């Protein structure tokens, strides 16, 4: 059994669940607890990454740089991670100040077929001596050959690992095995997997990824994340321990950290509710869920119809504006009936 690098996205992806309203006290409390548990990497920032605070995807309560500063103060063992999507974040406005504020690990993400937009950001972070990973989002939308090609581009830019994200929670275990093994065969650098729980398969898919050769696995406390949430990190640690994969994370302490997360960060526990199940089936980014629910109420249309229509249009992350357009269209059709 190989060693796994556990990447904690509670303080980044989790933010989607509460409309990006994490406070400094919440960041401090969870960062300290995860650090104590020996979590290797703690990622912070707006749910869509640095610089993404906007009307389009939601404005954050705490500016990214303050989040980084607060987390930095509360971490001694863990590395501090950040996430950026070119098109939202820029080097000058976001990456440079984050690196100066003490980020150790930089993940640069793009939609799964658009890796070349990450070149400058990956190279910049490597030049600054950071640990740098490429991320292919919405990876259920491309076949394994395309994913391998795109991941190879990221490797050529200097990425030290590539993570496949199941941003819509649309994967079944076979998809995970097939796509992760394709990347493991194609790359000389580590491969990672980031699951969403829309179809209730986050833990199972993470296990499938590890068995297929992935060495980086993402999780968040209690699955804190958009809609149905992510993979509960405390479950991952338990399951991997039972399977014999070493993670270096202490079981009791990560269980404690997850209790702290539930108490301090979360309003409701994530669960695959109907809209999340539909989002997974439609292959639409889980981060859309809060926006879809709000807009569906406002225009009096069925949120499930919105998700299926968005899926039909093959929308990608960052296209949240289409929710309003689709809702207006659906409500007009309803009036005509």
């Amino acid at each position, binding site marked *: 059994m190989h060693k796994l690098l556990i990447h904690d996205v509670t303080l980044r992806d989790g933010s989607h669940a509460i409309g990006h309203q994490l406070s400094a006290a919440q960041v401090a409390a969870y960062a300290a607890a995860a650090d104590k548990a020996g979590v290797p990497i703690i990622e912070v920032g707006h749910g869509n990454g640095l610089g993404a605070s906007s009307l389009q995807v939601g404005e954050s309560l705490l500016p990214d740089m303050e989040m980084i500063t607060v987390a930095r103060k509360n971490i001694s063992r863990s590395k501090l991670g950040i996430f950026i999507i070119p098109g939202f974040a820029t080097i000058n406005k976001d990456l440079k100040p984050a690196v100066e504020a003490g980020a150790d690990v930089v993940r640069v993400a793009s939609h799964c077929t658009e890796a070349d937009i990450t070149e400058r950001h990956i190279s910049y972070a490597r030049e600054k001596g950071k640990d740098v990973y490429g991320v292919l989002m919405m990876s259920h939308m491309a076949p394994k050959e395309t994913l391998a090609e795109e991941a190879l581009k990221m490797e050529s830019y200097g990425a030290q690992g590539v993570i496949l994200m199941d941003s819509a929670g649309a994967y079944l275990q076979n998809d995970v095995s097939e796509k992760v093994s394709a990347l493991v065969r194609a790359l000389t650098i580590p491969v990672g997997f980031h699951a969403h729980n829309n179809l209730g398969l986050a833990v199972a898919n993470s296990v499938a990824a590890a068995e297929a050769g992935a060495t980086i696995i993402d999780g968040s406390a209690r699955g804190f994340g958009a809609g149905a949430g992510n993979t509960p990190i405390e479950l991952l640690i338990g399951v991997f321990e039972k399977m014999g994969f070493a993670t270096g994370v202490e079981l009791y302490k990560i269980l404690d950290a997850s209790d702290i997360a539930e108490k301090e960060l979360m309003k409701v526990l994530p669960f695959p509710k109907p809209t999340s199940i539909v989002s997974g089936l439609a292959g639409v980014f889980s981060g859309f869920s809060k926006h879809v629910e709000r807009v569906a109420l406002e225009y009096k249309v069925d949120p499930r119809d919105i998700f299926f229509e968005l899926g039909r249009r093959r929308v990608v992350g960052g296209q949240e504006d289409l929710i309003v*357009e689709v809702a207006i269209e659906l409500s007009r059709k309803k009036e005509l009936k």
Partner: protein
Amino acid sequence: MSKKLKTAILGSGLIGTDLMIKIMRSPYLECTLFVGRNLQSKGMAKALSLGVKISDQSIDAIVKDPSCCDLVFDATSAKGHAVHAPILEKLGKLAIDLTPAQVGAMCVPGVNLKDCRGLKNVNMVTCGGQASIPLAYVVGQVHKDVEYIEVVSTISSRSAGPATRANLDEYIETTENGLKHFSGAARTKAILVLNPAQPCINMQTTVRATVAKPDMEALIPRVKEMVGIIQKYVPGYNLVVAPTLENNRIIMMVRVQGLGDYLPSYAGNLDIINCAAIAMAEEYAKNA
């Protein structure tokens, strides 16, 4: 025919090639030189097939033969135009910059075409800027205190060439500056999303604004009027969601279908910046 303004194009990529085809159709302009760095490129082949003179000597082609043109369209890169701008100035050439180099004053024909006539170097901002700034400008004209303007443009992956992809940061910075300049908003934000869906999607741009007191009654007719002005030089520019209040902020959306000159019609992003550049060049030609 001899009265047409002689123009050269620097940059033989997607933008430059599409621009050439549009110039060939203009009653006011002619393309006298198409300049790149590689004679084997697809753009060069297209120029040859259209009978346009080509060169692989970059800016030197114009330096060596200054009489070849009166106006130069620069469709290279932000770094490229920073080098080319002083050379063109010295040669006394008008320059229309399609890169996000931010050397000359920003030109958005629907807003300030006539004010740009006297300038020697104008910058066409960005594709998202051309689609959104006129709308942001109207928001600023109707409302005194614009707190924030945010623009999201989604374009088809196929329509974004290597230079566009390498220059996302400059795209964001230039678009944000343009929005601020023309709307008077205190804060601005630009986001660009690439979508690989097949069949390719048309360019779509959403403008959101936060203002102290939204005046939708005044805003809606002014936006529709502006859309009419833009349609005169960008025929495929359409308002798909008229200004509406959602979650207490103004939101409106436009979709841009291209003319289908060099790339298929989904490349509205190439089309709109090129149509804007042609509108500016024709304005120079009419007043020459």
